[in-house]
């Protein structure tokens, strides 16, 4: 297999957890049972792989941006497919717009980042590692952390969404963060 193509595939694979994390952030937890972030991400990576010639960027940042756009399209498609029973063209349109807005917004944020390129690179790397570390946490710890720290839900909201007590949620957060720190530390050590 062509060396360049192989390298590109490895790059894409690296982004898998990052994309899964973004997909989870975008989807309501109640959808998680019905719509698997993993499936959507798999479709995304397959699309990216099939269309890799179309990607003209050079940096990893550009690659991630490109992948986020593809993810947004696939998420919109998946949710639309799932919600096929609820016919509402206007809502579907606003779903897509909302998703694309989110993807563009994240790009906008990263673009507006006034820190130096090396700091940006570092942060991007951290995001990729964060995603990989989150993937290794027990499900309930990961969910609690994502809902509270990444989505900004209050502890009460998290408790309600997870069907646990607030006390239990705090415990999950504490233990989860601890484990997360350890995983990131270990990843750093490599």
């Amino acid at each position, binding site marked *: 297999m062509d060396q360049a193509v192989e390298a590109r595939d490895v790059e894409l694979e690296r982004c898998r957890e990052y994309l899964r994390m973004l997909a989870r952030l975008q989807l309501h937890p109640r959808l998680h049972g019905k719509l698997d972030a993993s499936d959507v991400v798999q479709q995304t990576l397959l699309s990216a792989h099939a269309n890799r010639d179309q990607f003209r960027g050079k940096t990893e940042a550009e690659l991630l941006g490109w992948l986020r756009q593809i993810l947004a399209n696939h998420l919109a498609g998946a949710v639309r497919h799932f919600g096929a029973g609820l016919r509402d063209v206007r809502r579907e349109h606003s779903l897509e717009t909302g998703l694309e807005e989110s993807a563009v917004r994240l790009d906008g944020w990263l673009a507006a980042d006034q820190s130096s390129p090396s700091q940006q690179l570092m942060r991007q790397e951290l995001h990729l590692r964060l995603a990989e570390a989150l993937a290794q946490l027990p499900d309930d710890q990961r969910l609690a952390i994502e809902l509270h*720290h990444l989505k900004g839900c209050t502890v009460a909201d998290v408790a309600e969404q997870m069907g646990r007590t607030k006390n239990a949620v705090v415990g999950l957060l504490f233990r989860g963060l601890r484990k997360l720190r350890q995983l990131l530390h270990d990843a750093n050590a490599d």
Partner: protein
Amino acid sequence: MSTEHATNAERESRLNDVLLSYLEAVQVGKAPERRQLLDRYPEFAAELREFFTLRDQISRLASPLREVALSGGLAGEPSAPDRPGFDFPDDRAPKTSARSGAASVELGPIGEFRLLREIGRGGMGVVYEAYQTSLNRRVALKVLPFAAALDPKQLARFQNEAQAAARLHHTNIVPVFAISQERGVHYYAMQLIDGQSLASLLDELRRHEPTRPARPGNLEALSGAGAASGPPAAALQPPAAAAHAVETSAAQLVSFSTERSLRKSSFFQRIAQLIRTAAEALEHAHQAGVVHRDIKPANLLLDLGGNLWVTDFGLALLQSAAGLTMTGELLGTLRYMSPEQVSARRGQVDH
């Protein structure tokens, strides 16, 4: 064995209660000093310290990602009819703002502030109109996602400066209500000013051509927006149609523009007066030992009554710190810097 296990479980449960009450206090804007918590629960000192460190750590990583979720991720919150979202048949009714009758889109809470809508975007952060729960009022909230990436020393410097700025009390300086961070999202709450920045006004003036018939449109009410490039071109209301608040701003713009094109002395007088007001505000700040460091049209606001406000005191340090490289970047926007500032000699910057 089982007794020991039960005791550990009980202890963990008590610790969780302590942490929970801390988190809930943060959520309503009444977070106690961390020091206080450590003093009150010495038996949990080690865990508390660890907890704070972990929270700070995740904050540094997570805040730009939070923006993705804040911006209305798919079905993250119960949706209003005009908002992207996914309704389940058994879902709760959409959350509407307690204040307004109409279903305003709530983007999510930061501390005790409930974000209502975005009103501007600048290099440093986004400005939202927000609702302050504890005081039942609308404020402008500037969210600073990259503040979390600062190291503790830089952060301390920024906080000191922002606190000094917050002590300023002057008719033409935008009061600061709160500077805090919550789960990594640093924010800066200040008085909401209905109006627009001079940068945006200048932008409009440049675009406006008196010979072209004015098309109906709106001028966005900007507050604290540091957008150097101004909002997208919004056409002016015809002067005759000026009726409500937004159009008052348009009327100001039109009269500015007319006066300018006619080279009326009143135009120059008005400008001179604005500059004088700004200078007086800065003088007041200097007397109090606070230097703005980033005065530019984007940080000078004109409210609907025609009053000038200076905003974003204390934020310049943040901007520079976040962008600082080893080679040392310049504070402030180059075009508006004083010679002393440009030459980067420490301790000599006085405006």
